[in-house]
């Protein structure tokens, strides 16, 4: 029997200046299904769901939710109309309590004659948290008391407690540990089993296939196809997303490459209060060294410490010739590049042009006066080397997709001619085609003799790309693995937990 229709999108269209982000997409979503929306970065998935959930206004077209047309003015309005979203980035606000965040914009249920019944709000928030198995989070606590993952879990409760007809989960799983993912997946299954609908945006194909009933593919803002999850495999999905057969040579295939004896960069007994404890490692020329571990293990601080961006650092970071690296300025002067996991806040000037972002670290060696034409050509050259999808180098970075933003970060350091690259989560939230491009670039740089350190939460990425993998646990190094063809995820997990 055909499933009943929950949501119908008809001719949905959106432009941002010259960018046609969503091109007249029409799609149906049935009741009682988890419907994945997949596509490369910049394919229009988030723009589409952001219009549905009131984050941005609808350009053209209509959404019919359970038979009624909806035009949400903002997120809370969308919630009242039956559509909710859990966003990719942090969606809770500092300076508010957990409960205030949960009911922000929706306090009217606790208001009587303009007065808010704050104790009642805290009580209800706590009951909801308890019902999701999150009783350790206190509703009356300031939200700053909790880490990123806990705050994401609060968002899950905030977006689902009122039983929305459609729940959008937008690339949320990357921010969660396995336990957090289990909670999210349970919520998604509950929504589906209640006869409601989940729209699941995710770049992890195995998660998409595991969780979804139906999968729709978008490419360059256009609708490509809708398929049943039981009838496709990862390879077929990748082909649909990219528009051509993806090479199976996704990761490196060479093994047994000996390390050069040349050390490019070393950490010697580096500690950072609360983050790292006496970490020592050597990064060699012509090597990709991976750092893995659970999200709070301290691995992200390793990148900062190597780049001189870690504060209160104790211990030494030195180049192969013994030159100490104690500040970001010294690091850049000695050809060290760093890409942070928090791309939008720590790596990019988000409200600035692609040109300014790419040329920034190279200005110091360009000489005065700076010439506009030279800067433009410089930025365009390296943006094109990375095949950045853009209108021009004067386009603002904020208008780019996650994958293209990362390409801008890498273009910057390519342009700066960096010999040592420290890349934290280089493929976070990035589609498979851009991932493949980045992996190919890393391998090429490795063969050119550059030293590359990749910090990643994706185990397969570490296994597939790295010559050595250092696994961290509780702020310390738990073990080290050499590259070999029979290495499995379990080998790494055994050291992580």
């Amino acid at each position: 029997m055909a499933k009943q229709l929950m949501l119908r999108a008809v001719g949905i269209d959106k432009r941002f200046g010259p960018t046609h982000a969503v091109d007249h997409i029409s799609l149906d979503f049935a009741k009682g299904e988890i419907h994945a929306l997949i596509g490369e970065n910049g394919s229009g998935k988030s723009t589409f769901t952001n219009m549905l959930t009131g984050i941005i206004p609808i350009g053209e077209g209509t959404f019919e939710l359970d038979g009624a047309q909806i035009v949400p003015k903002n997120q809370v309005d969308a919630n009242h109309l039956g559509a909710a979203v859990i966003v990719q980035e942090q969606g809770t606000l500092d300076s508010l309590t957990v409960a205030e965040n949960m009911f922000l914009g929706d306090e009217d249920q606790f208001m009587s004659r303009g007065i808010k019944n704050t104790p009642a709000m805290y009580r209800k928030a706590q009951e909801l948290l308890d019902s999701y198995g999150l009783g350790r989070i206190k509703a009356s606590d300031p939200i700053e008391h909790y880490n990123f993952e806990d705050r994401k879990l609060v968002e899950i409760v905030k977006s689902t407690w009122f039983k929305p007809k459609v729940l959008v989960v937008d690339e949320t799983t990357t921010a969660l540990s396995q336990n957090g993912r289990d909670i999210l997946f349970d919520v998604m299954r509950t929504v589906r089993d209640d006869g409601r609908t989940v729209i699941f945006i995710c770049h992890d194909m195995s998660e998409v296939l595991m969780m979804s009933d139906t999968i729709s593919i978008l490419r360059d803002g256009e609708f490509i196809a809708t398929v049943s999850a039981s009838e496709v495999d990862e390879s077929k999905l990748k082909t649909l997303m990219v528009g051509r057969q993806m090479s199976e040579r996704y990761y490196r295939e060479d093994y047994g490459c000996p390390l050069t004896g040349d050390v490019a960069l070393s950490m010697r007994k580096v500690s950072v209060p609360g983050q790292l404890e006496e970490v020592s490692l050597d990064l060699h020329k012509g090597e990709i060294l991976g750092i893995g571990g659970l999200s709070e293990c301290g691995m992200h601080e390793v990148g900062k410490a190597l780049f001189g961006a870690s504060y209160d650092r104790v211990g030494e970071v030195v180049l192969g010739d013994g030159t100490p690296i104690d500040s970001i300025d010294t690091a850049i002067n000695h050809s060290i590049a760093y890409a942070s996991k928090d791309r939008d806040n720590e790596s990019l000037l988000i409200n600035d042009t692609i040109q300014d972002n790419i040329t920034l670290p190279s200005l110091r060696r360009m000489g005065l006066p700076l010439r506009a034409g030279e800067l433009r050509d410089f930025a365009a050259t390296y943006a094109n080397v990375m095949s950045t999808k853009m209108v021009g180098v004067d386009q603002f970075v904020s208008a780019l997709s996650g994958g293209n933003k990362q390409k801008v970060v890498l273009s910057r350091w390519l342009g700066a001619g960096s010999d040592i690259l420290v890349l934290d989560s280089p493929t976070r939230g990035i589609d498979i085609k851009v991932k493949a491009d980045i992996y190919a670039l890393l391998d090429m740089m490795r063969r050119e003799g550059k030293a590359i350190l990749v910090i990643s939460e994706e185990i397969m990425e570490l296994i597939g790309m790295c010559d050595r993998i250092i696994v961290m646990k509780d702020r310390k190094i738990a073990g080290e693995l050499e590259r070999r063809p029979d290495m499995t995820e379990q080998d790494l997990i055994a050291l992580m937990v």
Partner: protein
Amino acid sequence: MRAALKKLRQSRYYGVGLLLLIAIAIWAVFKLLTPSNFGDPEKLVSYLQTALIYAVGGCGLYFICVMGLFDFSIGAMMILAELAAIAFIPWLGYVSVVVVPVLVGLLLGIFNGVAYIKMRIPSIIVTTGLSLLYEAASVWMANVNGTRLPASHNAFGSYPWNLVVALAAFCLCGFLLKYTKVGTYTNAIGANELVAKNMGVDVDRYKAIAFALCGLFVGIMSILYLGYGTAQTPQTGMLSQSLNFKPLMGTFFGLAFRKYGHPVVSIVIGEYIVSMIFAGFVAMGVPTTINNIVTGVTLLAIVTLTTKRFNGAVVK
């Protein structure tokens, strides 16, 4: 041990406790330096008298500053509100001393808010510009009925009525922050205006409300200030700006300690600390210039030491 310390720091009473300790420490230092002229119970009560005045203004500014905005017109607003109160005494009697400053403050606050929303330029520029207008108006207002408050109308300058009015203002501020949408929304706007907007918060409306509330509290501060000083001379050439500083100091304390959940209490204790420092220097016979330098440095030191900062954090 570390966990216990973290728990203590996250306690709701940690901030207030810390502020009280600082107040006691400052009292002890001045008491040691000038035992006969400082810190007797009677004097402590008189320090509170001035602290209450500025703390009320600090409460008003808190609504603005928590959103990352500023109101540099509060000094001019206060002068105008006081002179308006004096001007209407012949017709309204005691009602003029209470109602007129509050009404003038509220109206000017609404005007500030509307001007800021409509002009779409930074709040510092809008309110500095408007302060010039209010200063000019205060000169005109001073010509109506002079600049002195009749002795028969100064009950709000001393105990118990100053305390009654100030406590009412503090309760109102605490109530607005905790039991209305204003507190939540001004915090949310300060944390991330775009997200607040996406959550359906009418940002312009709540910014305007915050300016109106600031004006209201400045009006209440004017009642106390006029009663305490019994006269007010009009100021021109931006001289009223100097009156912005003391309420702002209390607001800084409120902002620095708001994470502990008691901004109003922090504002009051903060103003009391500032008041004690001023009085301590006066007792020591220190010239006003030195007094101002040391007070400014002390304020910066206290807020710096008590604010949790991270190396490399972006501070604007």
